[in-house]
C-alpha cells in the first residue's frame, strides 16, 4: 500500500511538470499532502494520539488545507490563471522529467539502501529534481513557489523513510520548514502580486 501511494506521488510530480494551469498546481500540491499523510500514517510503528496529531498537523492541516488555500488565494488576488511563458514547451518538459525519473532510479539503485525502502529514495530524488526543474524552467513566481513546495514534500518523504522513531528535533525542523513555506506564501506572495511577471529590478548594469 505504501509503495502504491509513493508511485501515485511520482505520477503527480510528472503531471505537475507539464501542466500549465495554476489551479491544477494548487490542487496537486494539496493532493500530494493527502498522499504524504497516507504514507506517514502507514509508516507509523506505534499509533499514539501524539504521533497521529503530529502527522495530521504537518500533512493534513498544513499541506492539504493551509498551503492550497493560500495558493488559491494568490490565484484569486493576482488573477493569473495559467503559465504564459515557459522556458520549455510541455513536450520537452515531459522529456526532461522522464530523464530525471530515470536518473533518480539509477542513483537510488546504485546505493545500498537496506534496511530502508528503495521507493522512498527514488521518489524523493525525483521530487527534488522536479522542484528544481519547475523553478528553473518557469518565469512566474507562482511556479517557483510550487517548485519550492515540491522540494519541501521531498524532504518530508525522505524523513518518513528514516522511520517513525524520528527524533523530536527533526520534527521541529520539519515544522519550522512548513512554517517558512506558509510565511512565504502568506506574506510575500500577497505583497508581490503586482510583480508576478518577473523580478528584474535588481541586476548588474
Amino acid at each position: 500500500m505504501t509503495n502504491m501511494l509513493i508511485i501515485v506521488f511520482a505520477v503527480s510530480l510528472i503531471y505537475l511538470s507539464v501542466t500549465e494551469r495554476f489551479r491544477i498546481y494548487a490542487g496537486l500540491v494539496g493532493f500530494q499532502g493527502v498522499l504524504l499523510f497516507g504514507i506517514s500514517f502507514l509508516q507509523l510503528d506505534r499509533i499514539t494520539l501524539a504521533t497521529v496529531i503530529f502527522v495530521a498537523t504537518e500533512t493534513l492541516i498544513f499541506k492539504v488545507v493551509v498551503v492550497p488555500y493560500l495558493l488559491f488565494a494568490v490565484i484569486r488576488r493576482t488573477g493569473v490563471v495559467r503559465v504564459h511563458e515557459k522556458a520549455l514547451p510541455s513536450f520537452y518538459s515531459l522529456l526532461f522529467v522522464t530523464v530525471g525519473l530515470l536518473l533518480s532510479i539509477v542513483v537510488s539503485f546504485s546505493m545500498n539502501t537496506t534496511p530502508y525502502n528503495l521507493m522512498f529514495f527514488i521518489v524523493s530524488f525525483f521530487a527534488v529534481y522536479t522542484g528544481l526543474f519547475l523553478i528553473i524552467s518557469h518565469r512566474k513566481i507562482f511556479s517557483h513557489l510550487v517548485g519550492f513546495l515540491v522540494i519541501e514534500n521531498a524532504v518530508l518523504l525522505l524523513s518518513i523513510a528514516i522511520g517513525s522513531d524520528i527524533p523530536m528535533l527533526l520534527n521541529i525542523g520539519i515544522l519550522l520548514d512548513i512554517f517558512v513555506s506558509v510565511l512565504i506564501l502568506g506574506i510575500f506572495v500577497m505583497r508581490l502580486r503586482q510583480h508576478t511577471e518577473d523580478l528584474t529590478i535588481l541586476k548588474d548594469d
Partner: protein
Amino acid sequence: MLTANNIIIGFFSASLLTGLLAGLVRSKPLIRTLTALYAAIHLAFTLSAWMHKGETALGYFTFDPLGLLLLSVLSILAVTTIYHGFIYVKDDPPRVYSIYHAALIALIASMTGAYLANGMTMVWIFVEATTLAVAALIYHDRSAMALEATWKYVFVCSVGIALAYIGILFLGFTTRDARLLHLSFSSVAGIAKLANPLYLKIAFVFVLVGYSTKMGLFPMHTVTVDAHTVAPPPISAFISTTLMNVGFLAIFRIYELFSATSVLTFMNHTLLLSGFLSLLISAGYMLKAKHNKRMLAYSSLENMGIVAIALGTGGIGYYAAILHIVLHSFAKAGLFYQIGQSYKVLGTYNLDESGNYMNLFPSGATALLLGLLCITAIPPSGMFISELLMFKALVAEGNFVLLILSATLLCYILYALLTRALHIVFSQPRSRAAGVKVTVSPWQTVSQYLLFAMVILVCFSQPVFFRDIVNEIIKNLPR
C-alpha cells in the same frame, strides 16, 4: 552559579525578553537602551562562554574553539553594527524602528545559537531562524526593490536550507539510526568512519549547496548579492560577515566530521571547484557592477571562494581559511559601514554618480581606501598573510594550475576594486546624483578605523592565544 547550562539559559532568556520588548515598545530612547544593553549582555555571555571552553550545555550546545572564535567576532561586530544601526534608523517611524531592533536582536541570538549548536539538526534550526530574522531587516526600507530582494533571499535560502536538510537526513541514513541525528558532532564523527562513502558524499554535496546560500559561495551566491544591494548598510555588514561565518561553520562542521573517512579527497575537490567558480564569477561581475554595495558583495563572494580553496587544499590551508574568515569579517564590516556613510555624503550608491569623496569627507575617504587596502590583501593587511598561506598550501600540494588561475583572477579583482574605489575617492562624478546629501561627523568613522587596525595588526603579529585557538580548531583535520 555560572554553569554552562545557566549561561545558555540566561542568554537565550535575555535575548527573548529584550527582543520582545524592543518589538513591542515604541519609545526610541527605550529601544536604544534595550539594544545597547543586549550588546553588553552578548559581550558578557561571550566572556562567560570562554570560561567554559570545551564544556557542553543542555546537550544541545557546546563551547568548542571554532564556535567561541566566531562568537567573539560576532560580539565585537554586534557592538559596531548596533552603533551604526542607531545612526541609520534614527529618523524612521517608531514602528519601523522597533521592528528593526527586534529583528536585529533575533538575528544575533540565532547566529549565536548556530555557532554553539552541538549537532547538525540544531545548526539547521538556527540557520532557518537567521533567514526569518534577516528577511525583516532586508525589507527595512519597504521599497519595491527591498521587497524583491527579501523575496529572493527568503525563497532561495529556503530552497537551500531544504537541500541542506536532505544532507542532514542522509547523515541519519549513514548511521542507520535516526536517533543518532540529534547526537553531538563528536559522536557522529566516530560513526561516520563506518558509513557508506556514497551516502557521505551525497550528504556533503547537499549540505555544501544548501549552506552556500548563507556562506555566499557558488552556486547559491546570487541571493546574498541582491540582499546586500538593498539592506541597510549595517545589516549588509552582518550578512557579509557573521552570517557568512554561520554558513562556513555549518560546512566546516560536516567537513571535519567526514575528514577521517575515504571521502576527504572528494570533499576537497568539491570545495576547490566551488571556490574557483566563486572567484571566476566574482571577477566576471566586479567590473560590470555599477552599484557600490553590489561591488562589495562580489568581493565577499571572492573572499568566500578563497576560504573554500584554502579549506579544500588542506595542510597550512586550514589555518589560512580560519584566519581569512576572521579578518574578512572585520575588514568587510568596516567597509560596509563606510559605504553607508559615503551614500549619505554623495547621495548615491551609483558608481557613475559617485566621486570627489576625498574633498567632501576626507575621514571617510581615507577609511574607504584603508578598507580597500585590507580587503584586497595588500600589505600591511593581515589578509595578505592568509592569502599567502593559501598560495603556500597550493604550492605544497603541487596544485600549480589552480594557483596560477586563482592568482590571475585575484589580480583582476584587485584591478576592478581599486579603479572603482579610486574613482569614488578622487575623480569627479560622471553624472549628477539625485539623492539628498547629508553631512556626516568624522567621529562616526572611528569604529571603522579600529576594525581595520585589527586587520593590519595581524600582518605584523598574530597573538599567541589566537594562534593556539586556530591550531586547536584544525587539530582534528588530516595533516
